[in-house]
């Protein structure tokens, strides 16, 4: 009788080798572009000079960190970064869940498709193009939204130079770009819920609102929690495109639009006074804190509900 090769048993070493070869391109790439840069973390502790390179520059301990934390901008950019991220997490979650729940009430299949496609459109444009769209609305002389904004009592002669309205603009534009994406994910989960749950609840006299809250929402919890955990891990980072492109990098707006990532970017791109060491220090700070936060949040979540955790 021919021996049946069971997949569950260990494969031969020859096969292991073949499989390693298959995964080699990815493994190499990740090594070079993800792990090697981790070694570059040492730059955070150096007075980095371009000509001396990573290994030639002088080590200066925590001075880069001190320099950043004592600077005037440190507080502003950190505050901005955290504030925007928290706003996005809260508003984003509320909006995407509510809209998904509402979409679940629409019965006409064509209508659903149209609504989904429209919401999804901005996701496919780069931030450069979105910045153009925003410009079309609020450009000083020609903007389409200017008459509306003026009626709110806000000066439209040069919105790119006046801070107060910008947090709302950025929050709105950020949501505009990603709402379709989040709604589709939530909606797909909702689609998978067995209709018998709803029918049973209706028979028991539950209103639409109650049915949504007690049936739909719990199903959405695992995926929402994962997204929040990931977002917490990125809480000191930002979507660079939003804060750099849409604002046209206008320096007048920095007090409300400058975030850590744009600050670092300018620090390294500044041709006359490039402070690479400090940029690296802040980058390390972001990654490290993000990492620790993910671990903490995930641990808390898995204590509460193992299924909902990231890993």
């Amino acid at each position, binding site marked *: 009788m021919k021996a049946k090769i069971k997949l569950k048993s260990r494969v031969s070493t020859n096969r292991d080798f073949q499989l390693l070869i298959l995964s080699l*391109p990815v493994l190499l790439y990740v090594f070079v572009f993800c792990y090697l840069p981790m070694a570059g973390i040492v730059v955070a502790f150096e007075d980095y000079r371009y000509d001396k390179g990573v290994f030639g520059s002088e080590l200066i301990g925590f001075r880069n960190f001190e320099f950043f934390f004592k600077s005037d901008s440190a507080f502003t950019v950190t505050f901005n970064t955290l504030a925007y991220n928290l706003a996005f997490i809260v508003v984003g979650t509320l909006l995407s869940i509510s809209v998904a729940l509402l979409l679940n009430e629409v019965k006409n299949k064509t209508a659903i498709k149209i609504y989904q496609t429209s919401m999804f459109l901005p996701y496919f444009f780069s931030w450069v193009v979105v910045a153009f769209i925003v410009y079309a*609305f609020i450009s000083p002389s020609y903007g389409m939204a200017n008459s509306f904004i003026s009626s709110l009592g806000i000066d439209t002669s040069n919105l790119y130079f006046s801070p107060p309205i910008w947090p709302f603009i950025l929050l709105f534009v950020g949501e505009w770009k990603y709402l379709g994406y989040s709604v589709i994910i939530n909606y797909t989960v909702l689609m998978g819920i067995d209709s018998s749950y709803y029918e049973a609840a209706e028979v028991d006299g539950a209103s639409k609102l109650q049915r949504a809250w007690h049936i739909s929402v719990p199903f959405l919890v695992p995926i929402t929690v994962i997204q929040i955990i990931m977002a917490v891990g990125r809480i000191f980072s930002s979507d660079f495109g939003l804060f750099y492109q849409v604002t046209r990098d206008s320096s007048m707006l920095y007090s409300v639009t400058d975030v850590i990532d744009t600050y670092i970017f300018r620090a390294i791109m500044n041709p006359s006074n490039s402070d690479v060491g400090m940029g690296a220090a802040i980058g390390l700070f972001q*990654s490290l804190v993000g990492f620790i936060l993910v671990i903490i949040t995930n641990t808390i979540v898995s204590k509460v509900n193992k299924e909902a955790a990231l890993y």
Partner: protein
Amino acid sequence: MKPNSIHKSIINIFFIILSLMFIIPIISIISISLTNENDILEFGYSVIPRSIDTIAYEYIFKNPKQIIDSYKVTILISVVGTVLSTLFMLMCSYTLARKGFRYKRILSFYLFFTLLFNGGLIPSYILTAKYLNLRDTIWVLILSGLVNVWYIFILRTFIQGIPESIIESALIDGASEYRIFSALIIPLSTPAIATIGLLNLFGYWNNWMTALLYIQNKELYPLQYLLQKIMMDIQAVIANMDKLPREVIEEMDIPSETTRMALAVVTAGPMLFIMPFFQKYFIRGMTVGSIKG
């Protein structure tokens, strides 16, 4: 009217308004690009053009060298990047999905860890620009984003859905892993390949960050970066307008408002066009990924 119908109408109205909020801005760009310049100077931008004028597009294609260069670069990196990326990632996902592979767990962790922690922008920049010497090369545009660990996990989940018996019979026949991959896995994974391939394509097409960091050579400007550069240059000029002598201003060939919008349409156009057709693949890919890859 029954309460149900009122309920339904309200919801539909809500969504119609919501959808318009997405569609109108996009249509505006197109219509502005087709508007007569004088109408804009007089009335400002509007959603519907008062008179149609294709002069902006004529202007762009009259001096097409930069646009053609950028289109060439963008198409090249998008196609090469997408093919290589999807292939390499699929190969790796197969090994991660392969039961009995000795290094499965450790390699999975090796990849997963990079999702939690990274070295930051500066070390990557120093590595790429200085040590790998990739500035102003086409390779940096292709290599950036070649591997995306999320997609690898999505593909892995997909491959895990392929019935074991198929692989088993190939093993009995003595097929090598390479053969199993090329003759079985690839054909069986076409939906996943389509999804991830499209996501990759879209990523490459819209990428402007890499060029911003590493590209100075005009001939290598991808479309999105070209668009951005033009906008930034105009900003700089306008900001300093009052300091420049009149003669200089008149000399300069500043693209008009409509031309800029036309450029945006030309840049975003292809993706916008592709999107509705492949929407269902995109959706499928994302939902699998987000429900724990």
